[in-house]
């Protein structure tokens, strides 16, 4: 990639960060407020990059995006789609219906009891039907869903092995509800393990619109400015995928922002073991890094309070950012957030003459925003008199609450009692306490910390995988693995990688334990370079 120009954006709930990189160097950086339509914020950041650097847009070889849209939507339960939920598995599986164990508010945000259906169908491990698919029941349920759902999630028992029932169900859904309804099929999302896969599929369906908006925004923004380079989005493992793929699989970007930030943090700080604390305007993500990579969650990954089997770095997202509203009664802080004023900070925050006290305002009041950063065009305070009028006791309490919240998050992620270094990045790093943080040996804010996530998006590789069930009585093991590997490499190529740079990073064989025969599932993960 050396020498080639790459543009990276990190769209947070509050700010959109941009960088222009040449080889390993940050050429210019920019920050704009994330706008309601997302596009304008990206265009603004892009214009700033292009104006400052004076490069020819046609020379840009790659544009990549990291985003916290899906995560923020899920943790704030905002802008989520209403999801029609089908499980194909009755009479089996009914002991644990869909949405079991989900937080009540999330359940209500995306669904309702009339939208959840356990339908007779699904497959046995060997591909036989459990029972024939009850197509009538699906059509009937769809008619009742009309006008009540934005998307549909379909999960069939053993669909990773045989997806027929999911496909058939999707056809009926399209017939009744039309082509505009987005359909998520579970077998395209995750592997064996019904409940976790179903959760993943439902979550995916719930953030379709959020992702569509982000991707369309990026497309519009870059094409308006004459960039023709391919567009990518960072996925959970820190590699990137093409944006067209991401639109259908937003759940793979649920850790997009933090994954980019972790890459950026390690790159910028040179610290390989410690905690990364990425503080945005709306949320903060904490990751534990070991030898330069985020620790991966072992078996299940919890997203928005829901267990999934998506491969993901082990992250803790909390609703704390620069724009987080400090709720208080008199001088006592009753809660931090979870709501953030987000991009309305400049309208609603006390520092800007607004009515609401935010984390940003407490930092202003304490004089912590002494370091002027060129990427911020606005001043940090336009109405100092509003801030000065705040009771000092309240400010101290709010500051202490923020510190305690960060300390608690770091403590949850640490696996040792020993203090470890912490890297604070993201625009919000300026407005939170950095001294005397418990459990931490030192807090680092490396150069370009305020656009760390955007830097991270530009240094990723492309990842892909493939899986297949093989019968080792009929096929030699090495052949079977080679066949699936080939498929994975093709998938990587489809996703945008250069075929000959694609390498295998994981070979996984899942046997059908306790069963006779030599059947197993082979799953191969690969990654490859996007640019020469």
């Amino acid at each position, binding site marked *: 990639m050396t020498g080639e120009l790459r543009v990276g954006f990190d769209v947070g709930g509050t700010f959109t960060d941009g960088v222009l990189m040449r080889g390993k160097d940050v050429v210019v950086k920019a920050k704009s407020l994330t706008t309601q339509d997302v596009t304008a914020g990206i265009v603004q950041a892009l214009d700033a990059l292009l104006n400052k650097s004076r490069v020819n847009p046609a020379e840009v070889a790659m544009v990549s995006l990291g985003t916290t849209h899906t995560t923020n939507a899920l943790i704030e339960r905002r802008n989520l789609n209403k999801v029609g939920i089908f499980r194909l598995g009755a009479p*089996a*599986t009914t002991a644990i219906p869909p949405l079991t164990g989900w937080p009540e508010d999330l359940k209500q945000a995306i669904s309702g009891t009339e939208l959840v259906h356990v339908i007779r169908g699904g497959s046995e*491990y060997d591909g036989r039907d459990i029972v024939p698919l009850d197509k009538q029941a699906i059509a009937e349920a769809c008619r009742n869903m009309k006008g009540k759902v934005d998307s549909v999630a379909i999960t069939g028992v053993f669909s990773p092995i045989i997806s027929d029932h999911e496909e058939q169900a999707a056809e009926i859904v399209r017939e009744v509800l039309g082509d505009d309804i987005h359909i998520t099929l579970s077998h395209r999302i995750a592997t064996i393990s019904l409940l976790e896969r179903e959760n993943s599929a439902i979550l995916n369906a719930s953030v379709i619109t959020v992702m569509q908006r982000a991707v369309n925004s990026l497309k519009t923004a870059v094409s308006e400015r004459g960039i023709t380079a391919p567009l990518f989005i960072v996925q959970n493992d820190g590699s990137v995928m093409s944006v067209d793929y991401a639109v259908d699989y937003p759940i793979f970007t649920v850790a997009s922002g933090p994954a980019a930030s972790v890459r950026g943090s390690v790159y910028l700080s040179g610290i390989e073991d410690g905690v990364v604390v990425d503080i945005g305007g709306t949320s903060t993500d904490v990751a534990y890094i070991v030898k330069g990579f985020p620790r991966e969650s072992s078996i299940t990954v919890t997203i928005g309070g829901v267990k999934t089997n998506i491969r993901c770095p082990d992250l803790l997202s909390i609703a704390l950012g620069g724009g987080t509203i400090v709720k208080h009664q008199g001088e006592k802080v009753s809660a931090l957030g979870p709501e953030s004023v987000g991009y309305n900070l400049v309208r609603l925050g006390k520092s800007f003459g607004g009515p609401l006290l935010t984390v940003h305002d407490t930092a202003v009041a304490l004089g912590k925003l002494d370091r002027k950063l060129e990427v911020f065009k606005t001043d940090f305070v336009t109405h100092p008199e509003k801030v000065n009028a705040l009771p000092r006791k309240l400010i101290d309490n709010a500051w202490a609450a923020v510190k305690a919240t960060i300390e608690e998050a770091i403590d949850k992620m640490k696996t040792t009692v020993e203090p470890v270094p912490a890297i604070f990045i993201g625009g919000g790093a300026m407005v939170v306490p950095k001294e005397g943080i418990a459990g931490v040996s030192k807090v680092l804010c490396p150069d370009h910390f305020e656009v760390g996530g955007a830097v991270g998006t530009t240094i990723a590789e492309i990842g892909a995988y493939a899986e297949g069930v093989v019968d080792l009585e009929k096929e030699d093991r090495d052949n079977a693995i080679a066949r699936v590997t080939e498929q994975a490499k093709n998938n990587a190529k489809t996703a945008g990688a250069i075929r000959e740079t694609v390498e295998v990073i994981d070979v996984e064989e899942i*046997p059908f334990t306790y*069963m006779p025969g030599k059947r197993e599932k082979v799953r191969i993960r690969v990654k490859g370079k996007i640019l020469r």
Partner: protein
Amino acid sequence: MKEKRVSARDILQEWDIKDFRVIDKQAISEITLGASILATGGGGDPEIGLLWTYKVLDEGKEILMVDPMEIPDEIQTASTACLGAALVLTEKPPSGGVLNLAIRRLEQYLGRPIQATIPIECGGVNSPVAYAAAGELGVPVIDVDGMNRAFPELQMTSWVTHGVHSSPTVSVDNRKNITVIDTGDDDVLAETLARRVAMAYGGISWIATYPLTGRQVKEASILNSQSIAWAAGHAVMCARQEHLDPIAELLKSLKKERDVEGFRVFRGKIVDIRREFGSETNKGFTLGQVIMEGIDEYKGQTASLDFQNEWLNLRVDGEVLCLPPDLIAILDSETGEPIRTDIMKYGYRGTIVLIPAHERMRTPKGIEMFGPRHFGYDLDYVPVETLNG
């Protein structure tokens, strides 16, 4: 059975038992974690059993656990369990009524009601399932099991080695198919039949088995097996919260509960998983070998473990360190989460911990039925504390 059901509390009152433990969500999550650590690499995915039990609790049903020595001799108990392929279970959770159906049909066959459940083994699925069933039926759970670990086959229990039998066993599936297996005292045949039935059902069966009387429970079970698992799970969960070494806490807990020494013998990462289907295929089990390369102070050493659903034996640089029925656990060094044979992956890092099997599993009959020779090793059983003393 037309008899009107009462609640677990009513039953305990009838038995004049005032001392019992109430199982809430926290308790069942600790018991399940402890059980999956003691499951010796097998025992299946705990998530399903756990969610099922949560659901039973959410429906307002009460789950109560009693000490085995308190129960009357003449009562009728039975075990409920899932028998079949762990991976199939993970993908195909049961329909709501399976345990109930199996128990009811067993009651019919026996001609008397089941008044308590007894977990069959320590495993991520079969431990919590006994609690879920107890909650659904309105009967207590007894603080015992038949292994204090997990084993691949139905007959590998202290119950069988102490002279009681799995028959009659009722095996049901989600479509309400029912099979009654009654092989009298031939427990190996019962296992063979039960496994064939599970395969015909689509890989998973739900069974009501080991109809034991109260007296048999006391004489033949691993007593307080549930408490041992509970304490182990509790110790590991506390260690996570307090950032203590979960493995040290686990070993302390076992010392306290069972007065045994566990051994931390290796730390490494999985570098090869060789799954051998071979001649053992027709038995219906996954066999294989895992190779781990040592890290930290074990650098340069190589560990190899054989497995038949559960880990069987451990060799480090060719030297035997553990033989069945003693327990082997590979635990995530940071969280204490067990790495199971069905989900282990290339690159997984873990610490190997060895735990002496319960004395009721180490009788001459036990060594014959599930010692090294039963699993095809030309080796005499040597206790893990001798091998590592």
